[in-house]
Structure formats: structure tokens, C-alpha cells
């Protein structure tokens, strides 16, 4: 992976890697529910998308309920929409204290490992990125997001205890993902973007850094995704030592890119809802060209969506995204 990153940075031509699996699910005529509960269907969706579009890397579904479900959180499933955590399973600090870290046989973890393993076996000419949640965002799904946002200030010891348990599970999960043969993992930590820089550092980045140090090597990359950050915690975000940073559309990407180390990738950040889902081919193409132009000064930039592209994003818009990339590269 280190070699791939260096190659991307050295190449003058831009590449794209949208975080996108829903169009693949639609291509094979399956429902979101089928894809997130059956690793084989999930894998087929990634393959279909891989055949249709020239993404520089393949990504799996950004499903931020898998880890919470493994801990025992109640999940609401929907045929046509990504699953949601229902309520909070931890009611107070005592619940945090007695919370047990689950093994990888709980919930849908094995189905996700299967999807990654099958895809890594089949796609060998480009990286395949698995997905997982970040510790602070997982803690928010277990303890209630509003309560978790206050816990670092009101009871920092309890917050750390919960984050330690979340980190332990995510580390084990990442290690298992690495064992499937994928090239890396995109870790989604959107809730940390709601914190100020110091709090983000102490209650998110320091925990992520532990996972990065344990699983990242020349053959396995961690890409940290934080679409909640509006520029308030970029310094903390880029301190984790990941091989890449993926930003959401709420941030000014050139400003954020200045804070990213030159040997790490900067990815983002076209609006998944406003452009991919609800835009037109014209607005999509225009916004893509504008972003490519704005990011000219950053060799470490990979064109991407700002988050997972929603279900029912028109294919014409995705086509326009790639057309813009081709047009930009043709004029270099």
C-alpha cells in the first residue's frame, strides 16, 4: 500500500475513489437489506460497480451499525436504506463499567469479513478498502450520541473507559479485516468532527492512533474519514499517522489539505446528497472540475465523494463525475 500511495502522489494524472456501493447494489437488483446482511450479495455489488466504473480502489459499504450491533445495540433494518442504531444500550456509567467487549462472532461481523475476503480474492489489480467505525462514533452509538458528546467534560474517566472498550473491539476487527487480504480500512469517525480540536485529540485521535500503530504497515493502510469536521479539528485528525485522510463536504478541502502531511493522501469531498443524489449531470460535472482545479497544488489528492453516496444516486451523475475526471486529465 505504501508503494501505491507513493505512485498516486507521483503520478500527475488524478485518480478517483468515490465511497460508493449503493449503485452496485442497484446494478445487481438487490436491496440494501440483502447487501448488509449477506456477505456474498455485498461482494457481488462491489464487483458489479468495479466492472462499471474505473475507481482507483474498491470500497465496501459504509455501515456504521455493524460494530454497535456486535456490542448488543438494537438495530433497525430497512429494505432500501442503511440500518440505524435504535436508542442507546448504555444508560449510565455503571453500564459502561460492566460492558463486555464482544468477539467477532456477534451480529453481522462475519458477513462483513466474508464480503471483504471474497472481494480481496477477486480484485487484485487495485486496492480494496474495508470499512469500520471510529471509537468515538461507536461510543456515541452505544451511550447515546448527545450524552457521549458531553461525557468527556462531565465524566472524562467514564468516557475513557468506554473508548478503551470500543478501541479494543475495533482493533480486533481491523486485524481480522487485514487477515481477509484487503489493502486497508476506511475508518469513519464523523462524530469526532463535532468536537473542538483538543477534545478530538484526547477522546478520538489518541485512541485511533493506537489502532493505526497496531495494524498499519507497508501493506495495509488506514484511511481516516471524518465528514463531521468543518475545520475545527483538522489538526487532531491528521495527528493519527494514517496513510490517508478522507474529508466531508462541510470543509474547505484546500485549507484542510495544507494540514495533511505531504506523504499521506487527501481525499474528498464532493457533496454526496446535493450532487451525487440530487444534482444533475451538469452540476456534478461542474463541481467536480472546480474541485479538481482547486486541488491542483496538492499531488496527494484523490478525487472522492464527501461521504458514502446515498441509495438511488442517478448513474448519469456518476458518469458525469468520471467524465469530468477524464476531461481534467486530458487537459494536463
Amino acid at each position, binding site marked *: 500500500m505504501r508503494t501505491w500511495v507513493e505512485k498516486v502522489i507521483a503520478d500527475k494524472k488524478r485518480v478517483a475513489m468515490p465511497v460508493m456501493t449503493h449503485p452496485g447494489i442497484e446494478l445487481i437488483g438487490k436491496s440494501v437489506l440483502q447487501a448488509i446482511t449477506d456477505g456474498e450479495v455485498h461482494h457481488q455489488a462491489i464487483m458489479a460497480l468495479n466492472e462499471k466504473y474505473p475507481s482507483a480502489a474498491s470500497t465496501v459499504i459504509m455501515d456504521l451499525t455493524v460494530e454497535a450491533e456486535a456490542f448488543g445495540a438494537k438495530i433497525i433494518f*430497512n429494505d432500501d*436504506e442503511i440500518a440505524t442504531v435504535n436508542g442507546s444500550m448504555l444508560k449510565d456509567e455503571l453500564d459502561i463499567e460492566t460492558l463486555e467487549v464482544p468477539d467477532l462472532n456477534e451480529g453481522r461481523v462475519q458477513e462483513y469479513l466474508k464480503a471483504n475476503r471474497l472481494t480481496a480474492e477477486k480484485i487484485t489489480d487495485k486496492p480494496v478498502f474495508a470499512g469500520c467505525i471510529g471509537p468515538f462514533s461507536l461510543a456515541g452509538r452505544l451511550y447515546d450520541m448527545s450524552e457521549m458528546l458531553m461525557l468527556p*467534560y462531565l465524566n472524562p474517566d467514564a468516557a475513557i473507559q468506554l473508548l478503551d472498550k470500543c478501541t479494543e473491539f475495533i482493533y480486533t476487527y481491523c486485524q481480522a479485516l487485514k487477515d481477509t487480504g484487503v489493502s486497508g480500512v476506511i475508518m469513519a469517525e464523523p462524530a469526532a468532527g*463535532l*468536537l473542538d480540536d483538543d477534545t478530538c485529540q484526547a477522546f478520538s485521535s489518541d485512541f485511533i492512533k493506537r489502532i493505526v500503530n497496531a495494524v498499519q504497515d507497508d501493506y495495509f493502510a488506514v484511511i481516516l474519514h471524518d465528514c463531521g469536521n468543518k475545520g475545527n479539528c483538522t489538526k487532531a485528525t491528521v495527528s493519527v499517522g494514517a496513510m490517508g485522510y478522507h474529508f466531508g463536504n462541510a470543509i474547505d478541502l484546500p485549507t484542510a489539505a495544507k494540514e495533511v502531511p505531504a506523504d499521506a493522501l487527501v481525499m474528498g469531498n464532493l457533496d454526496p*446528497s446535493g450532487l451525487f*443524489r*440530487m444534482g444533475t449531470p451538469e452540476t456534478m460535472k461542474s463541481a467536480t472540475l472546480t474541485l479538481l482545479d482547486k486541488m491542483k497544488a496538492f499531488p496527494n489528492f484523490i478525487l472522492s465523494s464527501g461521504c458514502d453516496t*446515498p*441509495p438511488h444516486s442517478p448513474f448519469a451523475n456518476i458518469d458525469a463525475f468520471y467524465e469530468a475526471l477524464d476531461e481534467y486529465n486530458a487537459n494536463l
Partner: protein
Amino acid sequence: MEDILEKIALCVENGKINAKSPYPPTMRGQDGADELTEQALAQGISPTDVLTKGLIVGMEKIGVRFRDNQVFVPQVLMSAKAMSTGMAHLNKYFNDGSVQRKGKFIIGTVEGDLHDIGKNLVKMMVEGNGYEIIDLGVDSNADKFIAAIEANPGACVGMSALLTTTMANMKVINKAIKEKHPEVKTFVGGAPVSEAFANEIGADFYTDGPQQLVEKLDSLIA
């Protein structure tokens, strides 16, 4: 009198809930909104003054700081918690009618959508600025909104959605509301929602954050 009301406002603005709360570190060991509200009422200060010159002032200040990116969501949540702790002492005055709120606001996440972080943040800010909240929770359909409107004449309505698939339901709900109660002012908000979308579906207002919504509500009742 002014002194204790200023202290209450300061506690709310800084998220100082009660004496036990360690936050903010600069106010450690001091009384919070909880104790000070109780003390103010015991001193004979009118509940209306406690509300309008103390608690609401603090929420207004934190709302402006949030809008201006000087503080972040956790700070607003702690202010809202301090506010609600103080408000608990005023409940009996609300119930007997001796303290009036500015107005009523019905809020809910629309049908098919179970996300409530944004909705709850708006709810806390609007409540903290002196409005009575009728919270419909998540997954709320048109019938639920209309029943709430009919039970609360004069209320404004806020609809929230996080998903592109569920924001389409805002159009259905807004249409149903406007057909039955065209006088009701409707607000829409949420990550995928925009001003253009609000115009397209015929909602009266789109606001980009809770403070904007509070300012718009205040202008409607002014």
C-alpha cells in the same frame, strides 16, 4: 436581584449545570443553574424574570456563539442541560399559567427516518429560548403532525430529515399541513436539506442551524 440573574445566565451560557458538575473547570465548586434558580425563586424574584432575564439570556448567548463557530455541539448540549435543570424549578409556574412561554413549536423527524441528533439539538435550543416544545420524536407522518397542530393552535412546525430517501416525505407532510392549515408556518432542516428544496416543496422556511431558526421564530412573534 440583577446579580443572581446574571449568574444564572452565566451558568447557562457556560454549561454549569449544578455545584457537583466539574464543567467548566473555571467554575468548579461554584453553584450552577440548578442551585441559583432555586435561590432566585426563594429570594422572591418572579419566575418570569428568572426565565427571561436569567435562563433565556444564557441560551441566547450560547446560540450566538455556536452560530459564529466559537463553541461546538457539546458546549451547546451542556448549556441546554443547565437550562433544563433550571427550568425544572419553573415547571409549576408554567403549569399554573403564571409564567408564559413565547409560543409553541412542534418538531419531529419525518416518516421513515429514525435520526434525532439534529432534531434534538434544535429542540433544546428552541426550548431554551422560551418556547414550549411538542416533540413528535422520530418517524412522524403527516397525521401525527396534523394532530399536534390541531391540539396546539398557533404553533409553528419543524420537520427534520437526515436521509435523502426520507426528505422526500417532507413534501408529503408539508402538503398535507398546508392543505388543512395553510396559516401554519413550516420549517425544514437537516443535512441533505437546502433552501432550494424548501422552496420546491412549499415549506415556509429553511434554516441552516438552530440559532437561525430561533431568530426566525422570534421575528414571527415580534
